[in-house]
């Protein structure tokens, strides 16, 4: 039986659509209700919080998984990224009020000590650090867009899909940092020892996304 970890929340529908397109059984998955473990026709699906998917995969609880590249980068866990599905596309970006945007247009020194609200603390720290900028991070677990308006931060570091939440909170995208999409991942141990049983599934998903 092949075990697949899937993220709950807004990516789940996209994941189901992808698996269905690749010919995997998803009838029970579509009607999961409150079940977190769903089994059908030789597949087991684990539904987990997006940030937990990489850990579960790393420790071998799942053979394969779908996870956003934002979450994979943030987890900093060594995994095998088998495929970019190109689904659930968005961008990781720095956003803030116009005042903050002006700081970014000048010398990089102006950014020193910038207060950045984010739930992606590792990626944010690494991004600014690669530019040689030290920042103050405010870790928030949600509604990050509120932070500048409340005076808690100068800008935010978050994923942006349509930008409507940003606009509604008076924020603009200042700089796009990296593209984000849904990736097919696996633990390195599973890939090395169990490739025979997962290869056909990986191939089926690859074929579907390349259609």
């Amino acid at each position, binding site marked *: 039986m092949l075990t697949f970890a899937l993220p709950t929340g807004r990516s789940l529908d996209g994941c189901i659509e992808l698996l269905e397109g690749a010919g995997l059984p998803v009838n029970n998955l579509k009607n999961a209700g409150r079940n977190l473990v769903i089994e059908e026709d030789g597949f087991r699906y684990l539904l987990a919080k997006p940030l937990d998917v990489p*850990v579960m995969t*790393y*420790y*071998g609880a799942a053979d394969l998984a779908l996870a956003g590249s934002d979450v994979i980068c943030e*987890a*900093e*866990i*060594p*995994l*095998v*990224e*088998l*495929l*970019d599905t190109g689904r659930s596309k968005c961008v990781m970006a720095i956003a803030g009020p116009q005042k903050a945007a002006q700081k970014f247009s000048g010398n990089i020194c102006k950014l020193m000590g910038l207060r950045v609200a984010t739930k992606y603390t590792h990626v944010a720290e690494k991004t600014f650090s690669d530019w040689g900028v030290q920042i103050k991070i405010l870790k928030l677990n949600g509604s990050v867009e509120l932070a500048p308006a409340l005076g808690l931060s100068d800008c935010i570091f978050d994923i942006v899909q349509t930008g409507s939440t940003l606009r509604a909170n008076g924020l603009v995208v200042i700089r796009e940092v990296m593209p984000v999409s849904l*990736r097919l991942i696996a633990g*390195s*141990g*599973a*890939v*090395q*020892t169990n*490739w*025979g049983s997962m*290869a056909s599934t990986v191939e089926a998903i690859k074929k579907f996304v390349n259609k």
Partner: protein
Amino acid sequence: MKRGIRMNRNPKGCSNIGGTAAAKLEYCRNRALELFAFYGYRPFSPAELQLVENVWDKISPARAGRLIALTSPFGEPCVLRGDLTLSAVTYLASHFQDEERPLRLSYADRIFSAPKSPKHNLEENQVGVELIGWEGAGADAEVISLLLRVLDELSIASTVVLGDMSVISKIFAKLPGNAGKVLTDALQDGSYTSYNNILGDINIPDNDKKLLSALPQLKGSVSVINDAMKMLGDPSILMPLKNLCDSLAKLGFEKRIRIDLGFIRDLGYYSGPIFNVYSEKSGSLLGGGGRYDGLLAKIGMDGEAAGFALNLKELADCCDGSLPSPQLMVWCGNSDPSDCLLYADELHRSGVSFELSWHRDKDESMRIAGLRKYKWWIDFADKRIFSLDSGESRNIDSFDMGALSC
């Protein structure tokens, strides 16, 4: 926690190992070193600190960045030993003449490095061997078969995954510019997405691109080598790996071998066959190793070298064996200590493991023996032995101690 006793907290990332876990760990360590000794590997105990200058340029930047640096009390820049292979090689280079090679070393020691998420441990207990400076082709097979034999000794069902750094180097050598380097980095990072993106941008003939595109997927049973040979312009580059697999198959290990031709180990000094070994039961990584001729070259030595290291804690988790625990408690509370210790010597000579109890209170001694799950308790003063399961007792002299010998 007892009231009034101040608990000692370990530094984050460090842990004490006691109880059953320690007994299992010691069991695995002893069995492994014993087996290595039979195969002519001599124990080696390296220094806990390594000079930065001896380490820094010998391992990959990613690995070097995880070393734990400190300054010794003599003002020398050092790192806590992050790698035992490196210690073994530098030991060989500075302590042995060329004619004394090959050198077979075994070790069981700790290594230290900053953990990679999601792990938190700063230290890892390893047991392993290094075979340095041989002349001939059998050493890779010797090292891998020894790895599998030690796991058999510990009754740990395992699978070994083989790759070959020289195959990757030779395939990538034909690529323009630094394409080989960036593709190697992508494979090492496990990012097949980046690998394929980079590959898409390289201007090479379609046949070569097809082979390179398939490389990360060339995994599975030994037959993968034949598949790869058909795709390669020069199949002879896979012959050493094929011969190694044939040797291991003749030793009865065929079903335990998997091939991964896109496999790269992250230490940065491997240059030939490399391998990881996994527990079949839990799927956890038990250890790995490979050929590292390049490391010898870096310290100015010619020749070949191979070795492996196993994570002792992982072995202990997967192993059902343990050091024998004492079978009985001898209560000496009312006796002359020297008489008791002479009796203890007698038990030792009979091969019976025991614990002495100097408690003044007989009942309390017996209660503690029960708590420690001993089956037998001896009242040395009365010369009687009690079964803690049934409560029956008899004279020591009428009891067959031979039945308890280890």
